[in-house]
């Protein structure tokens, strides 16, 4: 462990990324994510890396994808409007299987909205924002320290699955400062860049999957002369219009992540052993929810909490398992209702799932969620 520091969520995000090996950042400033870029601009050159500010968010996405192909671990960061602009190339990364982490520090939308205020309004967009079928990994930390860990994890997952990973922060945690003690460098697990397991002469195919369904396209400049495209392609990497190839391709994109779903579904259960009512929460809101659940317990309500760190792929199993024994689930969200739909679906009618939505630029106070729990219990929701 290192010294105790007062650190902001956004700074922790940058620090985590660098700790995980990120050496390239490209992006475009936008509130409330800007401190991530600013921190990177300062740190990266000092570790021999590169920070580049691009002409817009699309350029920011393109430049990091190019750098990733050339062998660097890469990060870009943005918020609402910029996240929308990046969607096309997020799909490119999914299709061409290029490791990249995209941080979205959520703010109030739609559109320019309320740039400085917190929200959780991009949860569904993180899953479905780009066109066509694609899988998605999204992580949402609830503390500054976990933001560091989540950044490390996001970089590792991007590299391991060769896929875009969304670090879905919110303004609450992004702009929060709290004391953190970061792990020492030697205690941080780093997933290295995958390498070709064959030579050209051995019949290397850049997009042939390994056992984990993930391919190992060679970094540019290493002598493999590979072709990378956003068209559907076969194992050689060249475009193919074959239905069989297309089917296998799209299937594999999803399965490589679903195979590992249990392992990458991170969540906490608090007071769930005997819980009758559960709050399902994520991101900065979970801090308030935790407080509320404690207060409910203090009042004798058998309340528990499931805190989702992994938002996508969605924790279906966790919810389903718990729904069997619960009398109700409350989903407080700083939006008009988003992850609630998933919880409801996963619960499959086993117990009522109720939304507690707040979308007025302010965060919940514990009392509101407590009331929500009581109302759920009392059948008033």
């Amino acid at each position, binding site marked *: 462990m290192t010294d105790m520091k007062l650190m902001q969520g956004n700074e922790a995000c940058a620090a985590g990324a660098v700790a995980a090996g990120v050496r390239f950042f490209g992006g475009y400033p936008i509130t409330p994510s800007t401190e991530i870029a600013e921190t990177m601009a300062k740190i990266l050159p000092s570790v021999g890396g590169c920070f580049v500010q691009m002409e817009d968010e699309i350029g920011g996405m393109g430049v990091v994808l*190019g750098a990733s192909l050339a062998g660097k671990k*890469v990060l870009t960061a943005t918020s609402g409007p910029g996240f929308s602009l990046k969607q096309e190339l997020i799909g490119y990364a999914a299709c061409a299987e290029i490791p990249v982490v995209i941080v979205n520090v959520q703010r109030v939308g739609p559109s320019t909205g309320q740039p400085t205020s917190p929200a959780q309004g991009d949860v569904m967009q993180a899953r479905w924002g780009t066109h066509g079928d694609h899988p998605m990994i999204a992580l949402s930390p609830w503390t500054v320290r976990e933001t560091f860990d989540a950044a490390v994890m996001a970089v590792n997952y991007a590299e391991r699955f060769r896929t875009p990973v969304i670090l879905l922060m919110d303004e609450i945690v992004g702009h929060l400062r709290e004391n953190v003690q970061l792990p020492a460098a030697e205690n941080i697990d780093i997933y290295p860049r995958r390498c070709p397991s064959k030579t050209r002469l051995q019949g290397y195919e850049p997009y042939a999957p390994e056992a984990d369904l993930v391919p190992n396209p060679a970094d540019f400049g290493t002598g493999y002369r590979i072709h990378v495209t956003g068209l559907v392609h076969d194992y050689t990497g060249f475009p193919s219009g074959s239905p069989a190839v297309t089917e296998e391709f799209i299937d594999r994109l999803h399965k490589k992540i679903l195979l590992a779903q249990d392992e990458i579904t991170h969540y906490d259960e608090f007071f769930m052993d005997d819980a009758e009512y559960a709050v399902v929460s994520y991101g900065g809101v979970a801090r308030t929810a935790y407080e509320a659940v404690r207060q409910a317990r203090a009042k004798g309500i058998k309340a528990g909490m499931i805190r989702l760190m992994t938002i996508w792929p969605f924790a279906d199993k966790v919810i389903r398992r718990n729904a069997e024994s619960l009398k109700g689930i409350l989903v407080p969200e700083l939006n008009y209702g988003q992850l609630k739909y998933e919880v409801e679906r996963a619960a499959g009618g086993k117990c009522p799932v109720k939304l507690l939505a707040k979308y007025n630029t302010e965060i919940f106070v514990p009392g509101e969620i407590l009331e929500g729990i009581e109302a759920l219990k009392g059948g008033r929701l």
Partner: protein
Amino acid sequence: MKERTYEKYFRQNRLPHIWCPGCGNGIAMKAIVQAVEMRGLPRDKTIIVSGIGCSSRASGYMDFDTLHTAHGRAIPFATGIKLANPELNVIVITGDGDCTAIGGNHFIHGARRNIDLTVVLFNNTIYGMTGGQASPMTPLHKKATTAPYGSVDRPFDACNLAQAAGASYVARSTAFHVQHMTDMIAEGISCRGFAFIETVVQCPTAYGRKNKMPDPAEMMKWMRDNAVMKTAWDRMPEEKKADKFPIGVFHRHQAVEYTEAYSEVITLAQEGGK
């Protein structure tokens, strides 16, 4: 038969290419590999990056590390590659739509940064891939599927634009002037900084048919008859310039290249400077 040494730069198993009969893209692609050969670029340290369009399909036929990006985005991807590994030679192949329509902003910003890329624009003055819509380089009054009454949108002079934006090297050639085109590209490769070469190529299918020039050879003869070498152009009276266009090197200006400039930042940062 003597060996055509440039043929080794093609992915033979992917030829013939998908381009239509008579399409000028094949000529420009050959000029690029010949220029690469002239300059002796190490093949495994040379990356070809393209956008989306007929022209951008070229990357798939060239035996280097090749990248077929999204429409308009070749330059940011190429910038990332170059910044991540400055020892790589990065050549961008793009179309008039790819480069100056959807990719216009990246184009001028690449030039502004003066990052060491060689950008070759295959200018067929139309959107070939999608079947003949007007591009920002479609000449005035010419027809396109989205300009059925003739285009009224003034075209860009991409060379002017590149220069105003800060490119270090700017040149133009045509598919008729094959050797000249090769030279223009080769010089661009030598330039340390943002080099831009517009190659005028014929698209008999999407442009020619709509504009009463369905024969590719006729289109090339038009290039022969209307392209004027820069030196001659500069001495030409204005009234004779109508319908003609200059080719050759328009601009050379060596400025600090971007990856070199950034290496200064690294030095400063590592000295703890602030």
